[in-house]
């Protein structure tokens, strides 16, 4: 991973990342009836609600302001009593965290949101963190059931079939990753090789000045 500091990069690239300098709000017919909303705000409004959540340490945080804004994020959904796939993904993400090194907690943040906020209290999640020896930079989150449900749907951890959707185990396989400032969002399979997930996260990293010199790994 490059040594570009997030703050340096955000400062260097100016405050308004979406200004491309041409009249996109102008109708091709000449009429100007369109609102100018930055694409970044469009994503925020549509997908990143600023609901209040509670961390495994009991701290109240706002989803957009405190957890998403200006950050590279890795998000999955789980619940403490989930067996099988959940612990495998957790241990896989611990490997991913190792690959990403000290950037996790600095400009890359891991978030695990519970699918069972009724039972996964901050105390339960704290115990879970201790049991799995989760390192700093990775926060487990709970909140009001309606807020969690809102987030789950906004972040696309859902199934259009209501019967399937009810089964919490149907939302645990994906790991969403994104760079909020760069408006890049995608998902990787939670049980992929940890190195592959780490590589995916690297795709949404802050741009380097000399993009063309990207060294290709052995992708045979």
């Amino acid at each position, binding site marked *: 991973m490059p040594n570009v500091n997030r703050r340096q990069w955000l400062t260097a690239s100016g405050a308004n990342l979406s200004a491309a300098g041409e009249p996109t709000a102008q109708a091709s017919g000449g009429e100007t009836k369109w609102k100018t909303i930055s694409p970044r705000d469009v994503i925020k409004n549509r997908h990143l609600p600023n609901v209040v959540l509670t961390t495994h340490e009991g701290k109240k945080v706002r989803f957009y302001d405190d957890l998403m804004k200006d950050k590279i994020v890795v998000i999955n959904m789980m619940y403490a009593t989930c067996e099988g796939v959940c612990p495998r993904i957790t241990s896989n993400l611990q490997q991913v965290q190792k690959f990403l090194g000290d950037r996790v907690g600095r400009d890359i943040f891991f978030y695990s949101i519970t699918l069972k906020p009724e039972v996964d209290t901050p105390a339960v999640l704290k115990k879970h963190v201790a049991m799995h020896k989760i390192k700093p930079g990775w926060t487990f989150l709970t909140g009001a059931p309606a807020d969690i449900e809102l987030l789950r749907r906004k972040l696309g951890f*859902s199934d259009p079939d209501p019967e399937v959707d009810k089964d919490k185990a149907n939302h645990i396989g994906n790991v969403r990753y994104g760079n909020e400032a760069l408006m890049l969002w995608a998902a990787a399979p939670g049980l*992929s*090789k940890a190195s592959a997930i780490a590589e995916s996260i690297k*795709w949404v990293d802050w741009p380097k000045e000399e993009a*063309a010199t990207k060294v290709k790994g052995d992708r045979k």
Partner: protein
Amino acid sequence: MAKISKARLKAQENARKNRQELIGVSRRDLMKMGLLTSAGLLVPKRGLSARALNSAGWLESGSSGDDIPCQSPPTTPFIEELPNHMNGGMVIHSPVAAFSNEAACPAQAAPSGCPNDGRTQPHQAFAQRPPVKKYEVSQRRTLKSVHPALPLQPLWGFARRQVDGAVDPNTHTGVAWTPGPTFVARYNEAVLVRNFNDLPPPQLNDGFGLPSVVTHLHNGHTPSESDGFPCDYFERGQFYDQHYPNVLAGINSTHPGTGDINESLSTLWYHDHRIEFTAPNVYKGLAGFYILFNELDTGDENTGFKLPSFPQFDIPLIITDRSFSPETGLLCFDMFSLDGVLGDRFLVNGKIQPFFNVQPRRYRFRVLDGGPSRFYQNFLLDPTSPSTINKFWHIANDGNLLPRPLLVNSIRLGVAERHDIIIDFRPFAGKTLYLENRLEQQDGRGPTNNLLPPGQGHKLLKFIVGGTPVPDGSADPSTQTFYPLPPRPTPRITRTFRFDRTNGQWAINNKLMPGDCSDIRFRVQRNSGERWILQNNSGGWQHPIHIHFEEFQLVRRNSRIIQAGDPEFARKDVVRLNFNEEVELLFRFRDFRGRYPMHCHNTLHEDHAMMLRFDIEDVGDNKTEP
């Protein structure tokens, strides 16, 4: 009317289920989630995250529970002409004498050695088929009008790099085309494309799209390193050389030196295939046509099969559905959708619901479903007599000419399928007709398989037929035959693949595509035959499955044997997996080696891991459920 009330009942039933599911969530919460209107009605969504249709068939909101529904602003239909090669709305690619950086970065079999060359593998067929034409391509941001009522759209397209001018270094924007410039290629004339990534940095992506790309030539008999494998992506400032030998399958095996004429391809297309980012990148516009002629399908209606002449009477049509924000008027894309993305506006060749002036004679249309998630069943509608079925000729499936033309009522298309048709407008002189999609689809899961009543579907394209008789040198399809199907191979092995949803992801045999493409799921023995069984055990999802490299023959759907006279009695590269269906395919994998994918072409399923890698090698393995 009965139909609508039935739909309402169904919506109420779903709403009831959803209410039960949400017990414990307060009314205020539901309103906050945009699921309850102030009148207390649950928004009639088919499952909370699905896009819902209103009674007019338009979408009421986006998936992932959007607060700002992406219901497009009004756009008056049929006021702009269909972009095509005759009116300058589409362009034919022009070859170049030499690449602009060729002195420093030579065009050769091995990677050029330049630091910004994205290729790492040598070209397999470069010495065998040295390129006789070179094309220089630039992928870049461009501003494009899709309809006069909407603002200019910041899209990504393909440019003829030595023709279309430079990219403005401040706005990272320039002249580009979407659909991209059409390649008009001929068999046995090898092509070398130097493909430059001139896209803007990611913070200028206008809300979605990763400026890291790899261009796939869809159904080319192309060596792996030029095929557009999902992990052969190249970055901003880099280029990648793709060598298209334009040879017939069998060239290095069953039909040495010539290839099998009965494996001829005609309508190919190219599109981005970037691992985990194909859906946004193609949605932004990275797609175009590649047409391949030979001594029989010549592009001239006075020679060979005498098919209507290109480009005047031979018209490619890429159909895509898109949504535009009612606030900004700009293209919406849901990056958080796993199921699929439907649009409420239909574009043909990049314009919303265009019209096309035709003469009363035969035309060939190459109809492509450009995705991302919608299926089509297209009819020819005469609005003065909607219940009359106007038949036309189906001549090619997935761009491959059928054994003989078939007279059909409609064509069914899944994402990435191509059907070439011939419409004879002579009986309609002076009239107005529509290409109408009557297939009902309510969410990204696939169509319901219900047909909307004639005249009540989605009108895609308006034909205004001239009244004056004109000469027509093309042949009468009823008298024609094209290529017989090649003999079916004796399979060395039978492999079975289940297409499923597992833990909220899309899987093949319960396995997922890793982002580094490192998992070689099985090895096919070069120059051997294989039988593949593809299974969909779901009653809720359909998947258009695409297998790269060589065409297959569809043997059966469940117990129904595909027989001569069926439009699927053909050589194909996409198979629609219907509800609870098993299909049997027979393949040969001839001539070249390397890595290729099989994947769902609903690009949201594709990006969420419904893909696998297989390698063609000299020795194959015996994995039956890889």
